[in-house]
């Protein structure tokens, strides 16, 4: 018995420390130029799933989508107690908006077949959209409960949770499977366990090894790198330290719904907000002066 949970996590640029080089000319984010962190809400989603497993038995599988470097958050999940981690990585998934992302994640969840609960953080700090959770639930054809704060009851196939809706709370009841988006007030995320860090710090996905080898063996003959990669992968696999890696073909994704073509929303324009506080603009305390300032604030979108 027990409950099988899937947790969706994301590696995000640390938006509290951003410089002007963060954006590429095409308006997309230059992730390479930014320090990457575990999306804060997702740590609470992981914790919520681990608590269900610790109390009722079952398993916790973590799914992330991103470039090879995103494996770092998967290792963080292993350190905290996740049973299985999977990275979904495919260049054809680049520039996916929330709708395309939720489609891709739903295909991955379908491949996992058996699950009772899906946990997502409420939102990611890079986009702050909070859309992928509800969209993933819809794509899976299951119900959603957003703003999860507390598990009230779980027995058989019935779950009761308390959700915080800002100006109050409510307790709702539904049948499994269900998707929950988790607030940072839901729990205290456990720290990495030292023993698990020792065990899993060497866990790697094949493409991470590939990237490491591309750097280490720039002049390798054709096939040599692949052979080396396979050689290094063997012992990792034997010890259960090989991070599973899936691409869009592995999850039978219809490319029409992925990446740019699968994304109805497009970035048209990006303005970076340059904060210069070299002295202030003096505004005359007159009607004319004040009206001019309000117009400035409308132009730069401070006021709607």
């Amino acid at each position, binding site marked *: 018995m027990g409950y099988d949970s899937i947790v969706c996590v994301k590696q995000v640029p640390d*938006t509290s420390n*951003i410089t002007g080089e*963060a*954006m590429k000319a095409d308006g997309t*984010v230059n992730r390479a130029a930014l320090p990457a962190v575990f999306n804060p809400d997702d740590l609470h989603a992981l914790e919520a799933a681990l608590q269900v497993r610790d109390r009722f038995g079952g398993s916790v599988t973590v799914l992330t989508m991103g470039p090879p470097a995103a494996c770092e958050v998967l290792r963080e999940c292993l350190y905290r107690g996740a049973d299985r981690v999977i990275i979904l990585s495919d260049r054809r998934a680049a520039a996916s*908006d929330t*709708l395309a992302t939720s489609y891709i994640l739903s295909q991955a969840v379908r491949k996992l077949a058996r699950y009772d609960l899906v946990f997502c953080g409420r939102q990611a*700090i890079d*986009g*702050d959209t*909070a*859309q992928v959770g*509800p*969209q993933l639930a*819809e794509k899976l054809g299951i*119900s*959603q409960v*957003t703003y999860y704060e507390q598990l009230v009851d779980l027995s058989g196939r019935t779950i*009761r949770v308390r959700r915080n*809706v*800002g100006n*109050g709370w*409510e*307790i*709702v*009841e*539904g*049948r499994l499977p269900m998707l929950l988006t988790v607030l940072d007030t839901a729990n205290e995320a456990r720290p990495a366990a030292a023993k698990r860090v020792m065990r899993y710090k060497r866990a790697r996905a094949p493409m991470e090894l590939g990237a490491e080898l591309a750097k280490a063996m720039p002049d390798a003959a054709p096939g040599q790198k692949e052979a080396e990669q396979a050689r290094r992968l063997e012992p990792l696999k034997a010890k259960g330290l090989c991070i599973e890696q899936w691409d869009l073909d592995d999850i039978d994704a219809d490319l029409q719904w992925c990446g740019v073509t699968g*994304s*109805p*929303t*497009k*970035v*048209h*324009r*990006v*303005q*970076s*907000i340059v*904060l210069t506080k070299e002295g*202030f*603009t*003096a*505004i*005359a*305390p*007159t*009607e004319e*002066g*004040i*009206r*001019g*300032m*309000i*117009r400035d604030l*409308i132009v730069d*979108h*401070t*006021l*709607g």
Partner: protein
Amino acid sequence: MIDPNPRGEVWVFAEQEDEHLSDTSLELCGKARELADRLGVQVGAVLAGWNVRELSYRLIAHGVDQVYHVHDTRLEYYRTLPYARVLCRMISKHKPQIVMYGATPLGRDLAPRVASEMRAGLTADCTDLQIGRYTDPRTKTVYDNLLMQIRPAFGGNIIATIINFDRWPQMATVREGVMRLGEGDPKRTGQIIDEKIAFNDFDQAVKLIERHREGRKVNLKGARIIVAGGGGVGSKDNFKLVHELAGVLGGAVGASRAAVDSGFIGKEHQIGQTGTTVRPALYVACGISGAVQHRAGMEESAKIIAINWDKDAPIFGVAHYGIVGDLNKIIPTLIKAIRERG
């Protein structure tokens, strides 16, 4: 999704709870009116609930032409699935070109579910919406009269304009308080169209067991705009000016320690080292001298307007705009300028 439909209406999801419309819904009605006039189309609103038909008249007063009203006991309290069913059915039937939702906890739960089912685009948390032209850089196709969905991203470090030219309706959630809340014209007329929706068993999959609502607490952390008053405001009575300015800006009210210690306002409003630390998009400091303890709690704000009679007040050291003078004259002028949009 529906195909691009340039004659389609501009829609607002009319959020109501306990038979009260949210302010954001009314703000959106005003914005929808403006966008619809620009496009030469009508404004629609979807109003769902139990015994809420009366609210239609307020929507109409704020600029709505057609209220699509759904009356059903299963809609008495908001639940994602039945409400999503209502929206999807209404969108498929009437094919609006734009649908706006408040970026409230409810709107942000509902809109993505609807967008996913409709396979339509959705932009979260917009702070402005405009009508504009877009040229696809790849195909060179020109799209006129698209909805420009403007929103901050990356923790407010960038402003992105998002468009959706092919998979309609164009949908957006809009941040609370950024659109102007109009007065409403009770003499405006419009139509109320009663709609019936067939629900299935899955729509009832989640039950509401218990529900608790509190009055709105002071939410300084989440406020996009904060108007704060200091000792220089002078009296509790005069602090009404600060409240009024916050009201027209749709912002929260903050205070310096001096104002709290003088009893002008409660401690829960205090900003600074011993109070709350904030970084809103706009911070208006009224009669605050700007002691270092206060500045530490607000200097990260994206834009700071300082109003003070003392031109040497330290608050000007962190301000982007400074107005030296009597706040009793300046604040009313500001309120007027904001109401009239510059």
